[in-house]
């Protein structure tokens, strides 16, 4: 197991290096990192920056120059805010991690329960309704769903019943001056988490249902049934356990989709996380933040894929680790 993990980690390094070069090249060739300085019409500053970033040299040399400072922790300063990039990303990570954690947790539980129910009660009214809901969830833009949630569960009840505060909040993760895990936090979390997970639950529950049905029609389930094992035990001990491995893989492989969803969700609900940082930096053409942002995200996604492989191996003893 240990050598397997080491091997996979080592394999991930060239992947990230190549990806970072492609991203570097793409960003350098579409954005001028000195756009803001050029506007200020300070030729000495422009010349100094060209020298520092090696902009007069080949793209490969520029990349290695950038990579060296990136690896040594010198991430430079944002051209938008003037603060260190490392600090900006560090501050933005925490709200995003919270949102991702709750979104992932709730989405996995809901998708898992829906999968089991739909597979066990195949073609029942409930299964058909859930299938329809999944089709809708896949077919609508997530941001539209989020805006409708705000209108329906926050703004409308407040107006309709003349409340002082909406029942569910839709700005940030805490009310000003509040902190920690309390009712206020939960009232802030419900809507963004719901908006974030809708598309994920829709796809994962369809996949989980198929995996469950696959397991239910397998020989070991037929054997267990023939032996007279109680139905409940067949479902939870035999079928669910065996469909967990492919389910976990799909969930982990959707890490990039989850992060994409976070960008949109943070924008709608004004949560000061990585997504907002990305959008603000992109509007300002702040390549000094964009590039490290994408590398950090790429590393996170690669780690998730790694966890998927390990999880698969742990859940399915038939997979031999090499």
């Amino acid at each position: 197991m240990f050598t397997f993990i080491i091997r996979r980690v080592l394999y991930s390094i060239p992947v990230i290096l190549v990806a970072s070069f492609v991203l570097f090249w793409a960003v350098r060739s579409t954005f001028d990192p000195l756009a803001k300085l050029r506007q200020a019409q300070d030729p000495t500053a422009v010349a100094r920056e060209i020298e520092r970033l090696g902009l007069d040299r080949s793209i490969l040399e520029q990349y290695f120059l950038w990579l060296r400072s990136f690896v040594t922790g010198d991430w430079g300063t944002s051209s938008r805010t003037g603060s260190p990039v490392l600090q900006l990303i560090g501050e933005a990570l925490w709200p995003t991690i919270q949102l991702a954690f709750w979104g992932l947790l709730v989405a996995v539980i809901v998708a898992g329960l829906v999968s089991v129910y739909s597979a066990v009660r195949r073609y029942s009214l409930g299964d058909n309704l859930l299938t329809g809901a999944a089709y809708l969830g896949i077919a609508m833009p997530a941001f539209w769903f989020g805006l409708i949630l705000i209108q329906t569960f926050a703004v409308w009840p407040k107006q309709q019943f003349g409340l002082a505060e909406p029942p569910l909040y839709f700005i940030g993760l805490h009310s000003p001056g509040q902190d920690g895990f309390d009712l206020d936090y939960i009232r802030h979390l419900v809507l963004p988490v719901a908006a974030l997970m809708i598309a994920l639950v829709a796809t994962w529950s369809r996949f989980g249902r198929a995996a469950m049905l696959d397991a239910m029609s397998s020989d070991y389930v037929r054997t267990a049934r023939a032996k007279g094992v109680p139905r409940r035990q067949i479902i939870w001990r035999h079928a669910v356990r065996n469909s967990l491995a492919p389910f976990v893989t799909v969930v982990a492989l959707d890490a990039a989709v989850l992060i994409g969803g976070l960008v949109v969700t943070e924008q709608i609900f004004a949560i000061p996380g990585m997504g907002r940082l990305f959008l603000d930096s992109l509007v300002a053409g702040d390549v000094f933040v964009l590039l490290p942002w994408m590398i950090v995200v790429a590393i996170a996604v690669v780690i998730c894929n790694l966890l998927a492989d390990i999880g698969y191996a742990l859940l399915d003893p038939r997979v031999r680790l090499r």
Partner: protein
Amino acid sequence: MSGAGLAGSEELLAEQDVQQGSGRQLLQRFLKHRLALTSLIVLLLLMIVCFGADWVAPYPQGQQDLLLGPTPPSAEHLLGTDELGRDFLSEILYAGRISLAIGLFVALLSTLVGTTLGALAGYLGGWVGELLMRITDLFLIVPAIALLAVIVQGLGPSPVTIVFALTALGWTYIARVVRAQVLSLREKDFIDAARGIGASNLRIIIAHLLPNLAGVLAVGMSLAVASAIIAESTLSFLGFGVQSPQTSWGSMLSQAAGYVGTPQVYLLYFPGLFILVTVLAVNFIGDGLRDALDPQGKHL
């Protein structure tokens, strides 16, 4: 190969006719799929009313009626009017032209690029195929919406750059599917037979492989249309999509986001419903095609 082998090869080439025959069956099975057929009709209708908006729309594009202002849906204005008194139904139909055109163009282009590269990678195999798959892997590491936003912002937002960006990311899925399909087809006897009678690589790919890919491509294309329409709307919502004075369903939604909590909230619902119906229809058509291809229903 001897002469007898050649005769045998021709017999094997006749396998192609079987495949052609199943094309007709495919059509029959698709037409029996009621949901898919309804969806096809809905999609065609949407395309007719949007692309024919100049004739169909009740009011010209952008015609303002400032004295009228925002009104809820009525007999005069079926979907109401916005704050400038513009007929919302007409605006949606005109915006649909761009949304639908982006979806269709992206699907066509990414199918073209994906099929070419996927077929080459699968047929030639070796390091070419390996390299292509590693490239498609790279696209899975960074969230698509972030890459799209960077590309579109870097090149300057316009429908053309949006189509370019969506194609640049969209071809990978089709390339993977096509490569997998070609890898299995390449081992089939009729390809060996074609090679046996001296057909060139190009001829084998065009005349023997591509016709057998039609099914997967149709499904892949329908998925591409759906994801392109959703991605365009998301980009426009984030501010990196279609820019005024041009409008798409996504940019209308982005405008309407400001109406949450106002009496004009109905403006938020309609463009989204058009996206929802279009994407649903396209997905059902894809399902119908898949069921027609795989009547045993192994996909569940």
